[in-house]
């Protein structure tokens, strides 16, 4: 890395820490009396972040440091919001952040050395299917979809892990930028989408569908497939609307939330009120009313952030997410090997579409679907899996850079 770039990266990690310190000092006197919890939390976060930054820079040669810094910055902003809304959940979130960083490190190294092993697209397909079937058998139903596995107080969504195996499946099937056996390949994708629909995880099905569409188009550059895919999305959207009651509710709440404000439109209306309250500069940290917004720590954390940091803060956050996606696409473009390039692209696409779906949902651009905002929403499995997929992206970058040097 050039010294000048490294200096900018160091400056940015320091800025992330500075924002954390200022916010935790401010929040410690929130509510009239002094409480040290945000300060302790801020310090612990800072220590974990600096140790992680040092270790990844020291041990992971040829990595992309921007991925780590951007992720930490988003986690920092998410944590500030969590302290503000519910301090106990922020403490748990820091634990998940620590675990996430360890797994980021591990998955970078593992994918650096083992991603070249060919195990064939069929095995990736089988693993994906097993992961998606498991909650149908052992799972519990939550928020209308049966896609969770719960052990005592800990719960996990296997479809988060299936995103990674599905990315590898797509990349492996489209090796050499060609579809070898179209019927078989599209059949496999339909099975995966069908399983998600059976679990009634429709946000997930949408995510997998569009990722597959984008990767197939990126690999083959065929307009006909792209158009068929978009037509297919429209048709399956219509079927979903007819078939599932909660899709109808969501679409109606999206078309006109003001029809039933205390009932179906409640979430989206509260989210819109919060954003309107924020204005350009926001109400200021600690002065908004996030307690009015339902599911504010998970799905609607963006609305709470919008209220207190304003339009300027929220659009900056979207740009930070955009930068993360940009880095992923850049990694993918710089690799000539089709498997690695497509794997990097599909992991990035999963991130990008997920961010678009949830931010579009809370701002009433598209109908609301319950997916988490990566790195920001409260929740262990989302945080951990986001870090693992980011680590794989980092590992692919390291592997490609290593191959270039050693020939």
């Amino acid at each position, binding site marked *: 890395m050039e010294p*000048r*770039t490294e200096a*900018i*990266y160091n*400056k*940015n990690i320091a*800025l*992330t820490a*500075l*924002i954390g310190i*200022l*916010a935790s000092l*401010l929040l410690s*006197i*929130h509510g*009239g009396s002094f409480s040290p919890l945000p300060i302790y939390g801020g310090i612990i976060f800072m220590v974990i972040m600096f140790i992680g930054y040092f270790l990844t820079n020291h041990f992971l040669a040829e990595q992309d440091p*921007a991925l780590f810094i*951007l992720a930490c*910055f988003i986690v920092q902003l998410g944590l500030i919001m969590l302290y503000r809304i519910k301090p106990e959940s922020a403490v748990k979130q820091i634990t998940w952040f620590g675990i996430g960083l360890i797994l980021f490190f591990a998955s970078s190294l593992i994918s650096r050395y083992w991603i*070249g*092993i*060919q195990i064939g697209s069929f095995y990736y397909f089988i693993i994906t299917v097993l992961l998606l079937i498991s909650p149908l058998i052992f799972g519990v139903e939550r928020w209308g979809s049966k896609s969770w596995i719960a052990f005592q107080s800990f719960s996990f969504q296997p479809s988060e892990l299936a995103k990674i195996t599905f990315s590898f499946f797509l990349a492996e099937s489209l090796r*050499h930028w060609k579809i070898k056996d179209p019927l078989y390949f599209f059949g496999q994708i339909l099975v995966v989408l069908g399983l998600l629909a059976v679990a009634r995880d429709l946000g997930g099905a949408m995510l997998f569908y569009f990722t597959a569409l984008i990767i197939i188009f990126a690999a083959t*550059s065929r307009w006909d497939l792209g158009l068929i895919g978009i037509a297919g999305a429209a048709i399956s959207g219509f079927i979903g609307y007819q078939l599932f009651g909660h899709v109808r509710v969501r679409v109606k709440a999206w078309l006109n939330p003001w029809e039933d404000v205390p009932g179906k439109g409640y979430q989206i209306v509260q989210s819109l009120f919060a954003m309107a309250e924020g204005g350009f*500069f*926001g*109400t*200021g*940290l*600690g*002065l908004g009313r996030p307690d009015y917004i339902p599911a504010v720590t998970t799905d609607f954390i963006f609305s709470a952030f919008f209220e*207190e*940091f*304003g339009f*300027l*803060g929220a659009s*900056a*956050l979207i*740009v*930070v997410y955009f*930068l993360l996606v*940009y880095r992923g696409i*850049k990694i993918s473009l710089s690799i*000539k*090997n*089709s498997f690695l390039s497509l794997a990097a692209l599909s992991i990035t696409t999963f991130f990008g579409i997920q961010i678009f779906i949830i931010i579009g949902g809370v701002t009433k651009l598209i109908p609301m679907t319950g997916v988490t905002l990566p790195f920001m929403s409260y929740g262990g499995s989302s945080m951990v899996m986001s870090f693992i997929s980011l680590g794989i992206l980092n590992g692919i970058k390291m592997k490609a850079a290593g*191959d270039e040097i050693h020939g």
Partner: protein
Amino acid sequence: MFELLARSAKYIFICLIYYFLLNFLKIMVADLRKDKDKPQDTGFCLLEDNGQKYPLFNINTIGRAEDSDIIINDPFISSKHALITKKGSSLVIQDLHSTNGSFLNGKKIKRPMKLKEDDEILLGTKKLTFLRSETFGAKDRGYL
């Protein structure tokens, strides 16, 4: 008291967040500048019969001259024999009025022609095959 602090702090937060973005923008611009300067590998290559491999960049001149991008020392090849350039997403070959002519899959190249995978190019008496670098690599390195 808290309200006053929070109201003034919000401008500081916005400034810090945008300063963070500005720094990344600087890195992005530096990256783009660096990428523009270096010749870009197109991912394709020419393979000679004797196993010699020539990676193809955006612009490649082929000939006997010392300043050609791809130097082939053969009496039947002119000093500036042919040119392969990148047009959009494909590579295009054209003959540079060479003495012995260039042939693509047996046909003489008169105007610029698009190259496809596994095309055979005949320059003078030298036969070259147009391949993706990756398919070439797959033959001798197995896992890649």
